[in-house]
């Protein structure tokens, strides 16, 4: 079946199958790549920008929060500007995100972005409040510091006053014994001790107040350090304790120390008030901070959510893309495997279907090349002969030319003779007319002769009848004589004589009749001959006319012939030229045949090369050996066929010209020396 199909159809079929497979792979791959592209575009245009934006939001939010915290901690007013710019950036990012989400109709992200925007607005508002609070706190703190300092100074002054009065009391006691309290010595002493004790007690209270104020300061510092208003409330209890201590001190206070005490108490009161305000403001700030943390946490959460949405989208897209890639890998792998199998099968069949006929063609070509070589040798020898023949032809043509000259003169002579013939023919015509007239008179005469012969025949018939009857009479007489016996003997003799006479007259009549019949026949023949002669003469007359016409034509023809001979002369000279050219061409064809032989050899080499190409060097080598092996198996038919050709090629004049010198005897004769010796 596969042999019946053409090679081109086979190739086309195979390649179209491969192309179809490739096309299917390509279409599938393109489809998958289109999906990947779509996913990538989604990722690139939507998810990644959203992700970046959301990350930005998150980062900026965190920065803002950090800044906020720092601000709340430090109260540095420079942070406010930074936080404001941060908030503006956050809002910008949120707006861009919202724009992107709106652009791609991502409703949940729009919602999230809106919420984030609200949160950002809230946060900004809150921040304003916080900053106010912070400023207020700062003011309060300054005030508190001031009050504190004042209080401390007052305390210190009070304490110093107390110390001084105590020391004075002690000095009085030591120096004057009773200078101040001379009247009542024991009482004075006792009062002096009591006074001293009171003074010491006052000094202790003052010291306690100072300690408490220190503790309150420490508590405030601690609260400041730990950022805890609860710790600050400890300071407030200390301040309460100071208050009680001061109240206690008030009872035992010296008059001289009252201003200091009042100042101290006032300072303590102020200090306490400011501290309470500060704590309140602080608490407010903390609640605001908590709220701000909440809002910022919400903002961050939304930003994270958007980011996570982006990440999810990226993940989904990338997993889809990976799936597509895997699909296309699978289809490409399967397709390539299928294509390889189909291609392998196709290439095997195709190579088989090509190599088989090609190897057959190669063997035929090889034998053809050998035949061409031998034929070209024959052509060479034929061309030599042709050249020789052309030379002979040239000499013959010269002879022809001479003959043509003779022909021309003869043609002129012909024309002259034709004119003479014309004259003779008119004379002949007259003679023929005379002959016709003579023939007519001869016919008449012969008619007379025929008539006479007829009459004579009648007479002879009569004579014959008479003779017959005489014979009958003689026989009757003989019968009668026999009847008469001896008496009729004489009569019998007479009857016999009569019968003899009758017989003789019969014979004479018969002879005469024959003669007359001959004469009659002759006359008949004469009449016919005359008629034929007359017809012939008429024909002669016609012919003479025709001859005259023909002679005229001959005259014209001779003239044309003369012209024709002139043209023939030209043609002969042309032929001479052509023959010379033929000779040259024959020489050329001889050399061409030699070249052809060389090319046939080359063709043989090429065919061997082709054989190597098609069957591989091993098989080509075995094929090349085969013709050498043939003489072993069939020495008789192979060697006589090849050897004479080769020797002729080697010893022919063509070889002597040197064209075929490269054609070695080893190549021409497919036998080695040993086999040649055997041959």
């Amino acid at each position: 079946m596969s042999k019946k199909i053409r090679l081109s159809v086979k190739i086309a079929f195979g390649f179209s199958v491969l192309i179809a497979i490739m096309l299917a792979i390509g279409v599938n791959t393109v489809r998958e790549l289109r999906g990947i592209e779509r996913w990538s575009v989604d990722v690139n245009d939507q998810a990644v920008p959203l992700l970046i934006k959301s990350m930005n939001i998150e980062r900026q939010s965190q920065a803002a929060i950090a800044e906020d915290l720092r601000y709340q901690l430090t109260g540095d007013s420079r942070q406010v500007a930074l936080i404001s710019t941060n908030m503006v950036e956050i809002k910008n990012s949120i707006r861009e995100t919202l724009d992107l989400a709106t652009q791609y109709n991502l409703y949940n992200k729009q919602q999230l972005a809106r919420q984030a925007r609200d949160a950002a607005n809230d946060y900004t508002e809150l921040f304003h409040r916080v900053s106010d609070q912070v400023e207020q706190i700062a003011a309060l703190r300054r005030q508190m510091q001031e009050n504190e300092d004042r209080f401390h100074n007052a305390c210190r002054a009070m304490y110093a006053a107390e110390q001084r009065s105590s020391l004075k009391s002690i000095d009085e006691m030591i120096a004057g014994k009773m200078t101040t309290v001379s009247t009542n010595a024991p009482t004075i002493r006792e009062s002096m001790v009591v006074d001293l004790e009171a003074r010491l007690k006052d000094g202790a209270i003052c010291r306690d107040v100072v300690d408490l104020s220190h503790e309150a300061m420490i508590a405030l510092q601690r609260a400041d350090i730990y950022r805890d208003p609860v710790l600050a409330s400890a300071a407030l209890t200390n301040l309460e304790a100071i208050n009680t201590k001061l109240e206690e001190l008030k009872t035992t206070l010296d008059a001289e120390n009252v201003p200091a005490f009042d100042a101290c108490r006032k300072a303590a009161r102020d200090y306490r008030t400011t501290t309470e305000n500060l704590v309140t403001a602080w608490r407010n700030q903390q609640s605001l901070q908590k709220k701000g943390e909440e809002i910022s946490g919400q903002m961050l959460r939304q930003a994270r959510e958007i980011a996570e949405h982006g990440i999810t989208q990226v993940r989904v897209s990338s997993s889809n893309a990976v799936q597509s890639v895997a699909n296309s890998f699978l289809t490409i792998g399967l397709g390539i495997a299928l294509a390889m199998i189909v291609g392998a099968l196709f290439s095997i069949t195709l190579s088989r279907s090509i190599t088989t006929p090609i190897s057959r063609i190669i063997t035929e070509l090889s034998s053809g090349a050998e035949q061409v070589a031998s034929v070209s040798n024959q052509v060479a020898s034929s061309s030599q002969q042709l050249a020789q023949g052309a030379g002979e032809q040239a000499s013959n043509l010269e002879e022809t030319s001479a003959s043509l000259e003779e022909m021309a003169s003869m043609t002129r002579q012909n024309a002259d003779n034709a004119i003479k013939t014309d004259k003779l023919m008119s004379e002949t015509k007259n003679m023929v007319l005379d002959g016709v007239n003579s023939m007519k008179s001869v016919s008449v005469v012969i008619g007379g002769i025929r008539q006479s012969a007829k009459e004579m025949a009648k007479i002879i018939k009569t004579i014959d009848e008479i003779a017959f009857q005489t014979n009958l009479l003689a026989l009757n007489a003989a019968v009668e004589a026999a009847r008469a016996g001896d008496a009729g003997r004489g009569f019998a003799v007479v009857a016999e004589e009569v019968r003899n006479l009758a017989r003789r007259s019969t014979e004479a009549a018969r002879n005469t009749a024959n003669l007359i019949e001959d004469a009659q026949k002759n006359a008949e023949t004469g009449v016919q001959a005359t008629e034929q002669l007359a017809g012939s003469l008429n024909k002669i007359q016609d012919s003479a006319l025709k001859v005259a016409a023909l002679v005229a034509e001959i005259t014209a023809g001779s003239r044309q012939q003369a012209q024709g001979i002139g043209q023939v002369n030209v043609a002969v000279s042309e032929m001479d030229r052509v023959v010379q050219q033929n000779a040259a061409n024959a020489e050329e064809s001889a050399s061409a045949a030699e070249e052809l032989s060389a090319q046939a050899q080359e063709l043989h080499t090429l065919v061997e090369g082709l054989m190597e190409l098609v069957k591989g060097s091993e098989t080509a080598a075995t094929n090349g050996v085969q013709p050498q092996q043939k003489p072993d198996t069939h020495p008789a038919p192979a060697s006589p066929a090849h050897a004479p050709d080769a020797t002729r090629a080697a010893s022919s004049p063509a070889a002597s010209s040197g064209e075929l010198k490269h054609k070695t005897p080893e190549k021409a004769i497919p036998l080695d020396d040993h086999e040649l010796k055997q041959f």
Partner: protein
Amino acid sequence: MAIVETNVPASQKRTGKHLVFRLAGEEYGFPILKIQEIVQWLELTRVPRVPDFILGVMNLRGKVVPVIDLHVRFGLPPAPVTPRTCVIVLQVQRETGLLVSGVVADDVMEVVDVPVEQIESPPEFGARVSTEFIAGIVQIENRVILLLNAEKVLDSRDWTFVEKVLEEKDQAHE
């Protein structure tokens, strides 16, 4: 020359002159004493109810004579009538009387004298003519002549019937 001896046996009368005539290219002979005369061919009158070898009757000087065609009688090919055709009139002695009858000959040749010693017996077979009609055979100068027996030639089983018819005709004629 022997005179007619009617009482001599037929085998001994094979002598003397014979009239030689031609019939279908062959030469036959009748003894001359059996012959009444020779006449030229005449127009015949055909007679019905007679054997096919009887051509008809002819008027021989007032006498009705039957004419036999020997071609038919001998089974030879028929021959056309020519100017040389003749009728040989035979007369044969029979028990009832003298029988006169004509025999057609293609040509009449001559009268030959046949020596008795030259006459040979008819062959048992091979002759074209039935041997019962042949009296003998003679060879003269390279010519073979069959000598016929005139009685046998004229004799026939039908002959009485022929005679009766002829008598009737004769009476009618008279």
